[in-house]
Protein backbone atom coordinates (compact mmCIF):
# COMPACT_ATOMS: atom_id res chain seq x y z
CA UNK A 1 0.00 0.00 0.00
CA UNK A 2 1.12 3.54 -0.62
CA UNK A 3 2.16 5.55 2.40
CA UNK A 4 -0.95 7.72 3.12
CA UNK A 5 -3.18 4.66 2.85
CA UNK A 6 -0.88 2.65 5.10
CA UNK A 7 -1.03 5.42 7.66
CA UNK A 8 -4.84 5.70 7.45
CA UNK A 9 -5.12 1.92 7.74
CA UNK A 10 -2.92 1.92 10.85
CA UNK A 11 -4.95 4.73 12.46
CA UNK A 12 -8.28 2.98 11.74
CA UNK A 13 -7.12 -0.41 13.04
CA UNK A 14 -5.66 1.22 16.18
CA UNK A 15 -8.95 3.00 16.84
CA UNK A 16 -10.88 -0.24 16.38
CA UNK A 17 -8.48 -2.06 18.70
CA UNK A 18 -9.23 0.51 21.40
CA UNK A 19 -12.92 1.19 20.85
CA UNK A 20 -14.37 -2.24 20.09
CA UNK A 21 -13.17 -3.96 23.30
CA UNK A 22 -14.47 -0.96 25.28
CA UNK A 23 -17.85 -1.17 23.55
CA UNK A 24 -18.17 -4.92 24.08
CA UNK A 25 -17.11 -4.65 27.72
CA UNK A 26 -19.54 -1.78 28.40
CA UNK A 27 -22.43 -3.62 26.73
CA UNK A 28 -21.74 -6.82 28.67
CA UNK A 29 -21.55 -4.92 31.94
CA UNK A 30 -24.83 -3.16 31.12
CA UNK A 31 -26.41 -6.51 30.27
CA UNK A 32 -25.32 -7.98 33.59
CA UNK A 33 -26.62 -4.94 35.50
CA UNK A 34 -29.99 -5.18 33.75
Amino acid at each position, binding site marked *: *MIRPLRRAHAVIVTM*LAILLPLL*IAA*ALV*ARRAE
Partner: protein
Amino acid sequence: MSTAYRAVGWNRQKRRYDAVAAAGVGVYLAVFIGGGMLVDPQATIETLVIRGCGTAAILLLHIVLAIGPLCRLDPRFVPLLYNRRHLGVTTFVLALTHGVFALVQFHALGDVNPLVSLLVTSREYASLTDFPFQQLGLIALAILFVMAATSHDFWLRALSAPVWKSLHMLVYVAYALVIAHITLGALQAERHPVFPFVLCVGVAGLLALHVQAASRERRRDVERQLQPARVNLAASGFVDACGVDEIADTRAKTVCLSGERVAIFRYDGRISAVSNVCRHQNGPLGEGKIVGGCIVCPWHGYEYEPASGRAPAPFTERLPTFSVRVAGGRVLVNPTPHPPGTYVEPAAFVHDASRTRLRAKRFGEVSP
Protein backbone atom coordinates in the same frame (compact mmCIF):
# COMPACT_ATOMS: atom_id res chain seq x y z
CA MET B 1 -6.53 -8.52 -16.98
CA SER B 2 -8.92 -7.36 -19.71
CA THR B 3 -9.42 -4.26 -21.85
CA ALA B 4 -13.10 -4.88 -22.63
CA TYR B 5 -15.92 -4.60 -20.06
CA ARG B 6 -17.08 -7.92 -18.71
CA ALA B 7 -19.22 -8.38 -15.61
CA VAL B 8 -16.81 -11.05 -14.36
CA GLY B 9 -13.59 -12.08 -16.08
CA TRP B 10 -14.16 -15.75 -15.41
CA ASN B 11 -11.30 -18.20 -15.50
CA ARG B 12 -10.73 -21.66 -14.04
CA GLN B 13 -9.26 -20.38 -10.79
CA LYS B 14 -12.13 -17.95 -10.20
CA ARG B 15 -14.70 -20.65 -10.88
CA ARG B 16 -13.01 -22.99 -8.42
CA TYR B 17 -12.67 -20.21 -5.84
CA ASP B 18 -16.36 -19.28 -6.14
CA ALA B 19 -17.49 -22.90 -6.11
CA VAL B 20 -15.65 -23.49 -2.81
CA ALA B 21 -17.08 -20.27 -1.34
CA ALA B 22 -20.64 -21.07 -2.47
CA ALA B 23 -20.38 -24.63 -1.15
CA GLY B 24 -19.05 -23.33 2.18
CA VAL B 25 -21.90 -20.82 2.57
CA GLY B 26 -24.47 -23.42 1.47
CA VAL B 27 -23.24 -26.04 3.94
CA TYR B 28 -23.10 -23.45 6.73
CA LEU B 29 -26.68 -22.31 6.14
CA ALA B 30 -27.96 -25.88 5.78
CA VAL B 31 -26.29 -26.97 9.02
CA PHE B 32 -27.34 -23.81 10.88
CA ILE B 33 -30.97 -23.86 9.76
CA GLY B 34 -31.32 -27.66 9.93
CA GLY B 35 -29.63 -27.80 13.33
CA GLY B 36 -31.70 -24.84 14.52
CA MET B 37 -34.94 -26.64 13.65
CA LEU B 38 -33.82 -29.62 15.74
CA VAL B 39 -32.47 -27.66 18.71
CA ASP B 40 -35.21 -25.01 18.80
CA PRO B 41 -38.43 -26.38 17.26
CA GLN B 42 -40.28 -23.19 18.28
CA ALA B 43 -38.16 -21.03 15.98
CA THR B 44 -39.78 -20.17 12.66
CA ILE B 45 -37.93 -20.70 9.39
CA GLU B 46 -37.77 -16.90 8.97
CA THR B 47 -36.07 -16.53 12.35
CA LEU B 48 -33.55 -19.22 11.44
CA VAL B 49 -32.85 -17.54 8.09
CA ILE B 50 -32.29 -14.21 9.89
CA ARG B 51 -29.89 -15.83 12.35
CA GLY B 52 -28.19 -18.06 9.77
CA CYS B 53 -27.56 -15.31 7.21
CA GLY B 54 -26.52 -12.84 9.92
CA THR B 55 -23.95 -15.19 11.46
CA ALA B 56 -22.73 -16.31 8.02
CA ALA B 57 -22.25 -12.66 7.00
CA ILE B 58 -20.26 -11.77 10.11
CA LEU B 59 -18.15 -14.93 9.79
CA LEU B 60 -17.43 -14.15 6.13
CA LEU B 61 -16.62 -10.53 6.99
CA HIS B 62 -14.01 -11.77 9.47
CA ILE B 63 -12.55 -14.05 6.79
CA VAL B 64 -12.47 -11.23 4.20
CA LEU B 65 -10.71 -8.91 6.66
CA ALA B 66 -8.26 -11.61 7.76
CA ILE B 67 -7.05 -12.42 4.23
CA GLY B 68 -5.02 -9.20 3.86
CA PRO B 69 -2.89 -9.56 7.02
CA LEU B 70 -2.58 -13.32 6.50
CA CYS B 71 -1.07 -12.69 3.05
CA ARG B 72 1.38 -10.19 4.50
CA LEU B 73 2.41 -12.69 7.18
CA ASP B 74 2.63 -15.75 4.94
CA PRO B 75 2.64 -15.78 1.10
CA ARG B 76 0.91 -19.18 1.11
CA PHE B 77 -2.36 -17.32 1.75
CA VAL B 78 -2.03 -15.23 -1.45
CA PRO B 79 -4.38 -17.54 -3.45
CA LEU B 80 -7.17 -16.51 -1.04
CA LEU B 81 -6.63 -12.90 -2.08
CA TYR B 82 -7.13 -13.63 -5.76
CA ASN B 83 -10.92 -13.41 -5.73
CA ARG B 84 -11.51 -11.77 -2.36
CA ARG B 85 -13.98 -9.31 -3.87
CA HIS B 86 -16.43 -12.14 -4.57
CA LEU B 87 -16.31 -13.04 -0.89
CA GLY B 88 -17.10 -9.39 -0.12
CA VAL B 89 -20.09 -9.40 -2.47
CA THR B 90 -21.29 -12.68 -0.91
CA THR B 91 -21.03 -11.04 2.51
CA PHE B 92 -23.25 -8.20 1.28
CA VAL B 93 -25.83 -10.63 -0.18
CA LEU B 94 -26.00 -12.55 3.11
CA ALA B 95 -26.27 -9.32 5.10
CA LEU B 96 -29.01 -8.05 2.75
CA THR B 97 -30.99 -11.29 3.16
CA HIS B 98 -30.60 -11.00 6.94
CA GLY B 99 -31.77 -7.38 6.81
CA VAL B 100 -34.75 -7.95 4.51
CA PHE B 101 -36.05 -10.89 6.54
CA ALA B 102 -35.57 -8.94 9.79
CA LEU B 103 -37.35 -5.91 8.32
CA VAL B 104 -40.32 -8.03 7.25
CA GLN B 105 -40.43 -10.00 10.50
CA PHE B 106 -40.12 -7.08 12.91
CA HIS B 107 -41.37 -4.00 11.03
CA ALA B 108 -43.81 -5.00 8.29
CA LEU B 109 -46.91 -5.66 10.37
CA GLY B 110 -47.70 -2.07 11.37
CA ASP B 111 -49.27 0.83 9.49
CA VAL B 112 -46.03 2.65 8.71
CA ASN B 113 -43.44 1.89 6.10
CA PRO B 114 -41.09 -0.83 7.48
CA LEU B 115 -38.00 1.35 6.90
CA VAL B 116 -39.63 4.28 8.70
CA SER B 117 -40.62 1.91 11.48
CA LEU B 118 -37.01 0.75 11.80
CA LEU B 119 -35.79 4.33 12.09
CA VAL B 120 -38.37 5.63 14.59
CA THR B 121 -39.34 2.64 16.75
CA SER B 122 -36.58 3.15 19.30
CA ARG B 123 -34.75 6.35 20.14
CA GLU B 124 -32.99 5.20 23.30
CA TYR B 125 -29.61 6.41 22.09
CA ALA B 126 -28.34 6.89 25.65
CA SER B 127 -29.02 3.29 26.66
CA LEU B 128 -26.67 0.40 26.01
CA THR B 129 -29.34 -2.24 26.57
CA ASP B 130 -32.12 -0.59 24.53
CA PHE B 131 -30.02 1.12 21.87
CA PRO B 132 -31.65 1.07 18.38
CA PHE B 133 -29.08 -1.43 17.13
CA GLN B 134 -30.96 -2.16 13.90
CA GLN B 135 -30.09 1.32 12.64
CA LEU B 136 -26.41 0.47 13.02
CA GLY B 137 -26.97 -2.62 10.89
CA LEU B 138 -28.76 -0.53 8.26
CA ILE B 139 -25.82 1.89 7.99
CA ALA B 140 -23.37 -1.03 7.77
CA LEU B 141 -25.52 -2.59 5.04
CA ALA B 142 -25.49 0.68 3.07
CA ILE B 143 -21.68 0.78 3.26
CA LEU B 144 -21.42 -2.87 2.21
CA PHE B 145 -23.74 -2.09 -0.72
CA VAL B 146 -21.50 0.74 -1.97
CA MET B 147 -18.48 -1.53 -1.68
CA ALA B 148 -20.16 -4.49 -3.37
CA ALA B 149 -21.42 -2.25 -6.20
CA THR B 150 -17.92 -0.89 -6.84
CA SER B 151 -16.14 -4.26 -6.53
CA HIS B 152 -15.28 -4.30 -10.18
CA ASP B 153 -12.28 -3.26 -12.28
CA PHE B 154 -14.52 -0.75 -14.10
CA TRP B 155 -14.88 1.27 -10.88
CA LEU B 156 -11.22 0.73 -10.02
CA ARG B 157 -10.25 2.43 -13.29
CA ALA B 158 -12.99 5.07 -13.11
CA LEU B 159 -12.13 6.13 -9.55
CA SER B 160 -8.34 5.48 -9.76
CA ALA B 161 -6.60 2.99 -7.47
CA PRO B 162 -5.94 5.33 -4.50
CA VAL B 163 -9.55 6.62 -4.40
CA TRP B 164 -10.97 3.12 -4.85
CA LYS B 165 -8.74 1.74 -2.10
CA SER B 166 -9.67 4.61 0.23
CA LEU B 167 -13.36 4.01 -0.47
CA HIS B 168 -12.98 0.32 0.29
CA MET B 169 -11.30 1.05 3.60
CA LEU B 170 -14.85 1.91 4.70
CA VAL B 171 -15.08 -1.83 5.32
CA TYR B 172 -13.52 -1.16 8.73
CA VAL B 173 -16.29 1.34 9.53
CA ALA B 174 -18.83 -1.26 8.42
CA TYR B 175 -17.08 -3.85 10.60
CA ALA B 176 -17.22 -1.58 13.66
CA LEU B 177 -20.93 -0.90 13.01
CA VAL B 178 -21.63 -4.64 12.63
CA ILE B 179 -19.86 -5.44 15.91
CA ALA B 180 -21.86 -2.67 17.63
CA HIS B 181 -25.04 -4.01 15.97
CA ILE B 182 -24.39 -7.47 17.41
CA THR B 183 -23.17 -6.29 20.81
CA LEU B 184 -26.11 -3.95 21.40
CA GLY B 185 -28.63 -6.27 19.75
CA ALA B 186 -28.24 -10.04 19.77
CA LEU B 187 -25.89 -10.12 22.77
CA GLN B 188 -28.43 -8.22 24.88
CA ALA B 189 -31.12 -10.77 24.07
CA GLU B 190 -29.06 -13.98 24.11
CA ARG B 191 -27.87 -14.70 27.64
CA HIS B 192 -25.68 -17.72 27.01
CA PRO B 193 -21.98 -16.85 27.66
CA VAL B 194 -20.81 -18.64 24.51
CA PHE B 195 -22.09 -15.79 22.29
CA PRO B 196 -19.94 -12.98 23.78
CA PHE B 197 -17.03 -15.43 23.98
CA VAL B 198 -17.21 -16.24 20.26
CA LEU B 199 -17.56 -12.55 19.37
CA CYS B 200 -14.58 -11.58 21.54
CA VAL B 201 -12.44 -14.35 19.99
CA GLY B 202 -13.36 -13.13 16.49
CA VAL B 203 -12.67 -9.44 17.19
CA ALA B 204 -9.48 -10.09 19.18
CA GLY B 205 -8.16 -12.57 16.60
CA LEU B 206 -8.79 -10.23 13.69
CA LEU B 207 -7.27 -7.20 15.38
CA ALA B 208 -4.27 -9.25 16.56
CA LEU B 209 -3.65 -10.40 12.98
CA HIS B 210 -3.72 -6.79 11.74
CA VAL B 211 -1.41 -5.57 14.50
CA GLN B 212 1.03 -8.44 13.93
CA ALA B 213 1.10 -7.88 10.15
CA ALA B 214 1.55 -4.12 10.60
CA SER B 215 4.38 -4.49 13.13
CA ARG B 216 6.14 -6.98 10.87
CA GLU B 217 5.86 -4.63 7.89
CA ARG B 218 7.15 -1.79 10.02
CA ARG B 219 10.18 -3.85 11.06
CA ARG B 220 10.84 -4.75 7.43
CA ASP B 221 10.54 -1.08 6.38
CA VAL B 222 13.12 -0.13 9.00
CA GLU B 223 15.42 -2.89 7.72
CA ARG B 224 14.89 -1.70 4.14
CA GLN B 225 15.49 1.96 4.99
CA LEU B 226 18.56 2.94 3.03
CA GLN B 227 21.48 5.20 3.75
CA PRO B 228 23.06 7.60 1.20
CA ALA B 229 25.59 5.83 -0.98
CA ARG B 230 29.21 5.98 0.09
CA VAL B 231 30.52 6.20 -3.44
CA ASN B 232 30.46 9.90 -4.16
CA LEU B 233 26.83 9.65 -5.19
CA ALA B 234 25.18 11.22 -2.18
CA ALA B 235 25.33 14.61 -3.85
CA SER B 236 23.48 13.32 -6.90
CA GLY B 237 20.80 11.81 -4.70
CA PHE B 238 21.47 8.10 -5.27
CA VAL B 239 21.33 5.69 -2.38
CA ASP B 240 22.97 2.32 -1.93
CA ALA B 241 20.10 -0.14 -2.18
CA CYS B 242 21.68 -3.60 -2.15
CA GLY B 243 24.23 -5.81 -3.79
CA VAL B 244 23.43 -7.13 -7.26
CA ASP B 245 24.03 -10.65 -5.96
CA GLU B 246 21.37 -10.14 -3.29
CA ILE B 247 18.70 -10.23 -6.00
CA ALA B 248 17.83 -13.57 -7.56
CA ASP B 249 17.55 -13.60 -11.34
CA THR B 250 14.05 -12.58 -12.61
CA ARG B 251 13.16 -11.60 -9.03
CA ALA B 252 13.23 -8.39 -7.03
CA LYS B 253 14.44 -6.93 -3.80
CA THR B 254 12.09 -4.44 -2.16
CA VAL B 255 13.60 -1.42 -0.45
CA CYS B 256 12.06 1.56 1.31
CA LEU B 257 13.00 4.97 -0.09
CA SER B 258 11.63 8.08 1.64
CA GLY B 259 8.81 5.94 3.06
CA GLU B 260 7.77 4.48 -0.31
CA ARG B 261 8.57 0.92 -1.35
CA VAL B 262 10.59 0.36 -4.49
CA ALA B 263 11.00 -3.00 -6.24
CA ILE B 264 14.45 -3.53 -7.81
CA PHE B 265 14.34 -6.24 -10.47
CA ARG B 266 17.26 -8.22 -11.90
CA TYR B 267 16.80 -9.81 -15.31
CA ASP B 268 18.89 -10.63 -18.38
CA GLY B 269 22.01 -9.03 -16.87
CA ARG B 270 20.19 -5.78 -16.15
CA ILE B 271 18.66 -3.96 -13.20
CA SER B 272 15.47 -1.83 -13.21
CA ALA B 273 13.53 -0.24 -10.36
CA VAL B 274 9.80 0.50 -10.26
CA SER B 275 7.22 1.36 -7.61
CA ASN B 276 6.35 -1.70 -5.55
CA VAL B 277 2.63 -0.85 -5.78
CA CYS B 278 0.60 -2.51 -8.54
CA ARG B 279 -1.85 -0.08 -10.18
CA HIS B 280 -4.60 -2.67 -10.02
CA GLN B 281 -5.11 -3.29 -6.32
CA ASN B 282 -1.85 -2.13 -4.75
CA GLY B 283 -0.35 -5.62 -4.87
CA PRO B 284 3.33 -6.04 -3.87
CA LEU B 285 5.14 -6.21 -7.24
CA GLY B 286 8.45 -6.92 -5.51
CA GLU B 287 7.06 -10.31 -4.52
CA GLY B 288 6.33 -11.10 -8.15
CA LYS B 289 8.77 -12.19 -10.85
CA ILE B 290 9.64 -11.46 -14.45
CA VAL B 291 8.01 -13.76 -16.97
CA GLY B 292 8.41 -13.23 -20.71
CA GLY B 293 10.16 -9.91 -20.12
CA CYS B 294 7.41 -8.45 -17.93
CA ILE B 295 7.01 -8.04 -14.19
CA VAL B 296 3.99 -10.11 -13.12
CA CYS B 297 2.06 -9.02 -10.02
CA PRO B 298 1.68 -11.96 -7.61
CA TRP B 299 -1.89 -11.01 -6.75
CA HIS B 300 -3.80 -10.89 -10.04
CA GLY B 301 -1.18 -11.25 -12.78
CA TYR B 302 -1.05 -7.63 -13.98
CA GLU B 303 2.05 -7.13 -16.13
CA TYR B 304 4.54 -4.29 -16.55
CA GLU B 305 7.70 -3.77 -18.57
CA PRO B 306 10.47 -3.30 -16.00
CA ALA B 307 12.33 -0.49 -17.81
CA SER B 308 9.31 1.71 -18.55
CA GLY B 309 6.80 0.59 -15.90
CA ARG B 310 4.20 0.34 -18.68
CA ALA B 311 1.75 -2.52 -19.07
CA PRO B 312 2.21 -4.13 -22.49
CA ALA B 313 -0.25 -2.96 -25.18
CA PRO B 314 -3.24 -2.84 -25.30
CA PHE B 315 -3.23 -2.27 -21.52
CA THR B 316 -2.67 1.22 -20.15
CA GLU B 317 -1.46 0.87 -16.53
CA ARG B 318 1.78 2.69 -15.75
CA LEU B 319 4.12 2.61 -12.77
CA PRO B 320 6.55 5.27 -11.52
CA THR B 321 10.13 4.27 -12.39
CA PHE B 322 13.45 5.06 -10.72
CA SER B 323 16.93 5.79 -12.06
CA VAL B 324 19.32 2.97 -11.27
CA ARG B 325 23.10 2.55 -11.46
CA VAL B 326 25.41 -0.33 -10.68
CA ALA B 327 28.81 0.37 -9.13
CA GLY B 328 31.20 -2.17 -7.66
CA GLY B 329 28.51 -4.81 -7.51
CA ARG B 330 26.16 -2.48 -5.65
CA VAL B 331 22.78 -1.26 -6.90
CA LEU B 332 22.30 2.48 -6.49
CA VAL B 333 18.81 3.97 -6.78
CA ASN B 334 17.69 7.57 -7.04
CA PRO B 335 14.71 7.83 -4.65
CA THR B 336 12.98 10.55 -6.70
CA PRO B 337 10.43 8.73 -8.89
CA HIS B 338 9.99 9.48 -12.57
CA PRO B 339 6.41 10.08 -13.78
CA PRO B 340 4.52 6.81 -14.34
CA GLY B 341 5.51 5.10 -17.58
CA THR B 342 8.84 6.95 -18.02
CA TYR B 343 11.44 4.76 -19.72
CA VAL B 344 14.66 4.49 -17.71
CA GLU B 345 17.68 2.81 -19.22
CA PRO B 346 18.35 -0.35 -17.18
CA ALA B 347 21.70 -0.63 -15.40
CA ALA B 348 23.64 -3.50 -16.92
CA PHE B 349 26.22 -5.65 -15.16
CA VAL B 350 28.41 -8.63 -15.89
CA HIS B 351 28.62 -11.57 -13.57
CA ASP B 352 32.18 -12.83 -13.09
CA ALA B 353 31.38 -16.38 -12.08
CA SER B 354 35.00 -17.37 -11.42
CA ARG B 355 35.31 -14.70 -8.72
CA THR B 356 31.61 -14.57 -7.87
CA ARG B 357 31.83 -10.85 -8.31
CA LEU B 358 29.56 -8.49 -10.13
CA ARG B 359 30.86 -5.48 -11.94
CA ALA B 360 29.17 -2.50 -13.43
CA LYS B 361 29.12 -2.27 -17.18
CA ARG B 362 28.09 0.32 -19.71
CA PHE B 363 24.93 2.11 -18.58
CA GLY B 364 25.35 4.34 -15.56
CA GLU B 365 28.66 2.82 -14.55
CA VAL B 366 30.27 4.66 -11.67
CA SER B 367 33.67 3.93 -10.22
CA PRO B 368 33.70 3.22 -6.53
